[in-house]
């Protein structure tokens, strides 16, 4: 399930291409034993190492947090505009990763999937929105949710039929393979690339949303779609664009996640649960809330597992329950 990442983080400290499903918490013990063995040089050394572990884990957390944010941003915008909680969104992320695998293996060029995968997935998403989802708007929010739910099931099963249920490792592109020295340990370059790349995407998104005409319309539609409609903008078309764009972002997140987490059919469900938590903590419809919450969740998961490994499964849910009980609309949410 969704713990795979948290668990894999430890495996990945040992070696890069460890498959996330098979990594488990035993690795934590290995890490500590390792430290203990070297600790005979003195207590001070031991402490340095343990602080470094926390720092490295924090960077892991940021990497995963940015990944969640890429997926959750589309989800939260779509919810803000139309009130659709798009469960199939996590399936778009999963499809993105699988397309990346296919492109990398059959076309031999991982970079091509940065272009192809989001395009295909966005096309798929636009078809679903235009021809199926749009018909259910008049019947309230429940049918929309259930429809995307059905699509989630369909996509997961199709992935199992087409690619099989075993995890498929996607090789890290040669340009980004290898490690850099970091805090007395080595750190895989590819993860730093994920961090940098998602920051670039975030900046691009912020520019589009804050500085362009279409961004203003989108933000206005998130806060009140009816009013924007009355003002003469074509809200259904804008929404179609946001839906497709969100799906493309999710697919892009899938592409960059593929060499990092490997592709497996459960990745959609893992991401779905994390995304739910993130958009709820951040407040449904709030982009900045999603960013803050995603980074919080990433850091919490990767640091939390060092403190209380038994609770690793539920850290994000614990945080979500606390936030919702204290602030029922999330950290940055405004309306019901």
């Amino acid at each position, binding site marked *: 399930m969704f713990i795979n990442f948290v668990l894999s983080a430890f495996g990945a400290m040992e070696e890069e291409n460890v498959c996330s499903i098979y990594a488990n918490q035993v690795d934590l013990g290995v890490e500590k034993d390792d430290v203990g063995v070297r600790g005979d040089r003195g207590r001070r050394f031991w402490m340095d190492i343990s602080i470094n572990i926390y720092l490295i884990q924090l960077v892991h957390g940021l990497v995963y947090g940015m990944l969640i944010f890429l997926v959750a941003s589309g989800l939260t915008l779509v*919810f803000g505009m139309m009130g659709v*909680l798009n469960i199939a969104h996590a399936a778009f992320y999963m499809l993105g990763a699988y397309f990346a695998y296919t492109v990398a293996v059959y076309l031999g060029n991982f970079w091509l999937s940065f272009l192809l995968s989001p395009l295909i997935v966005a096309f798929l998403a636009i078809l679903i929105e235009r021809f*199926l989802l749009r*018909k*259910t708007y008049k*019947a309230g*929010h*429940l*049918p929309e*949710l*259930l*429809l995307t*739910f*059905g*699509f*989630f*099931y*369909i996509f*997961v*099963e*199709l992935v*199992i*039929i087409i690619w099989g249920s075993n995890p498929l490792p996607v090789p890290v592109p040669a340009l980004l393979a290898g490690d850099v020295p970091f805090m007395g340990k080595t750190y895989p370059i590819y993860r730093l690339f994920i961090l940098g790349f998602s920051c670039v995407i975030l900046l691009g998104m912020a520019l589009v949303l804050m500085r362009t005409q279409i961004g203003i319309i989108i933000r206005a539609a998130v806060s009140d779609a009816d009013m924007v409609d009355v003002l003469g903008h074509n809200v259904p078309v804008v929404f179609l664009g946001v839906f497709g764009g969100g799906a493309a972002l999710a697919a892009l997140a899938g592409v960059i996640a593929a060499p990092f987490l490997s592709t497996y059919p459960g990745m959609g*469900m893992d991401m779905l*649960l994390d995304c*739910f*938590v993130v958009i*709820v903590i951040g407040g*449904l419809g709030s982009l900045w809330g999603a960013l803050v919450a995603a980074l919080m969740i990433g850091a919490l998961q990767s640091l939390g597992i060092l403190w209380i490994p*038994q*609770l690793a*499964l*539920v850290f994000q*849910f*614990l945080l*979500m*329950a606390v936030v*919702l*009980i204290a602030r*029922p*609309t*999330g950290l940055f949410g405004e309306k*019901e």
Partner: protein
Amino acid sequence: MSRYGAFQIGGGGVAAVLLLFPIILPEIKIHLAIEILIFALLAVSFNLLLGYGGMLAFGHAAPFGVGAYAAALSCNHLPGMPLLVTLLIAALSGFVGALFIGFFCVRLKGAYFALITLAFQMFLFAAALKWRSVTRGDDGMGVVRPELYLPGLGSISLMNIHNLYYLTLVLVVVGIVACYLFLRTPLGNAVMCMRENDVRASFLGYDVFLTKLTVFSFAGLLAGLAGGLFVLFQEFVATTAIDVNRSFAALLMTVIGGTGHFLGPVLGAIFYTVFQDWISSLTKHWILFVGILFVIVVMYLEGGLISLLKWERIRVWVSGQKE
């Protein structure tokens, strides 16, 4: 033939079929029938929330799983405990679990409510997975079906599948009837009133929080009973009793059957279980077909399968004449 007469005949027919099932069906089908009965109870309790309360819960496996684990633990650790008391414990644990969860959840609405119930269910799932000394985690716990002692009849062995079928039938029918009667009370009406407009309901003087909490924990009671019966039937409990897929299965059954009618979820449970049994014998990718079915139902059959059985349609079909 009046509508009432048709209902009497139909109800009598259904009762006769339910009672005669063990005699006319092979044993493997009785297993399927027991499963259907248990899931019917789960789906009806889910529809109490979704259809009547307008509360979409993603975590309905929580009370189900709590009931299942409570039944398994009391079977294993309290030898000599009468079977019906075990099932009562299961139902009450479901009730208490739902009361606790509901206390934090029912203030919230819509997607927030759905997701926080999911969060609580994930806590319980993690507890079942990690608290190995009690729940044995992934390995699950085997349970020996205790004997049912009834005054006047002596003890009845449940290893005989027919006896188990009748026990399940009686308890499920009691649960579903209790649910039906609950909805006819003023409290049940208040629940529906809150589904339509809870602000107005609170202006009318209803305590929205307390009413929603009551219906949430009552649904938990029934789900806990279903969980207890499920353990008795499977003679085994593992984390699958409380995972996300169980919650989603309850949702699928209820929506496929139809949320707008009291018996919709029952129909959904029958259809879902039989469909799954049939199609998983043909292909291991049965989830795909469930998903497609789900999309079709949402797109083209708004009221669910039960809307195919509307009285008007049946009358036209039976008498062969249109209005």
